[in-house]
């Protein structure tokens, strides 16, 4: 039975819903590490380094929230709750720091820090400003953001994963549950569209 509990969450979750303490301690053991990783990973994107004390606090809050509010009973897909736990943890981490680091959390992941210059050069037909020309870079960022927003939803999603989140083709394929070849052709097409949109944009400015 132990093996059963370890591999598949379904029985474990049902036992936890019935407030079985032994099952609950298995669940806590199984997912504490994931919460740790998720909190750290999410905060890293905002340049925040959480102390282990903070992470411990967040972890306690998540578990007591799940237990006291009977959150597990709302879950339909009970075979694997790792993604659910990871999402809860990331969001709880943001909530936890929001009060203290409001200024930091207002600006989400910024474009220019994540896209490398080679990629930018490919998209901007007229070349890109040097790294020290902050004003020009901010302008470039803004026009790129506008161009991305003008894409249809599916291409917008793919190009955001590629440019902003810096994902590789195979990682995007995994995320979207699509074949890698489809992802690569979508990205190529979206890049062409971006180039086109940015060209028009430049002309408009002149």
């Amino acid at each position, binding site marked *: 039975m132990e093996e059963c509990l370890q591999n598949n969450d379904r029985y474990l979750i049902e036992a936890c819903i019935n407030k079985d303490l032994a099952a609950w301690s298995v669940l806590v053991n199984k997912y504490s590490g994931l919460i740790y990783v998720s909190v750290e*990973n999410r905060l890293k994107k905002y340049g925040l380094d959480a102390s282990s004390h903070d992470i411990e606090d967040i972890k306690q809050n998540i578990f007591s929230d799940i237990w006291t509010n009977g959150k597990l009973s709302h879950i339909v897909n009970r075979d694997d709750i790792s993604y659910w736990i990871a999402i809860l943890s990331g969001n709880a981490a943001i909530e936890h720091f929001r009060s203290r680091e409001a200024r930091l959390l207002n600006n989400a992941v910024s474009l220019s820090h994540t896209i490398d210059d080679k990629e930018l050069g490919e998209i901007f037909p007229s070349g890109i400003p040097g790294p020290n020309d902050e004003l020009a870079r901010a302008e470039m960022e803004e026009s790129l953001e506008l161009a991305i927003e003008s894409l249809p939803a599916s291409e917008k*999603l793919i190009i955001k994963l590629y440019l902003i989140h810096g994902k590789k083709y195979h990682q995007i394929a995994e995320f979207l549950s699509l074949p890698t070849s489809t992802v690569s052709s979508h990205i190529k097409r979206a890049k062409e569209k971006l180039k086109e949109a940015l060209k028009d944009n430049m002309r408009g400015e002149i």
Partner: protein
Amino acid sequence: MTDLKYALGAHPKESELADYLSNTLTNERRKGVEDHIACCDSCLESAVSAHESVKKFKKGKPGSMKRINIFLLLAIISFTLSFIFRDYFLQFLTATILLGAKWISDAKSTKMLVMIYEAWKKGGEKEASRILSSLDKDPKNRL
């Protein structure tokens, strides 16, 4: 834009985003979530982070328990030493107690009990009796 509810604001529930990542949604709901995360940067970021974290976690699973057991090991060693070096019996015994206390406070089951206690306080009598009745059954036998 198949689902205006998503595109225009209402964030998908955490469980729905999770089902999206594990690819267990119907096509229609998938499309709804995709339309939303294409526009909503915070949900996209949340999903991307969760996807990365789960991958990272499943890759390097063993490890996190080690630090806690070190204290148990040290406590046992110091307890043994207290018998070998009779002259320092009390000193070693104190060390044993300190290390043991550290081990207990670090142990996950203790943290769990603290958590349950808090739930108990909030949940009132009914919750308390339910928790107590499940405590009566030996957890080891049930696993």
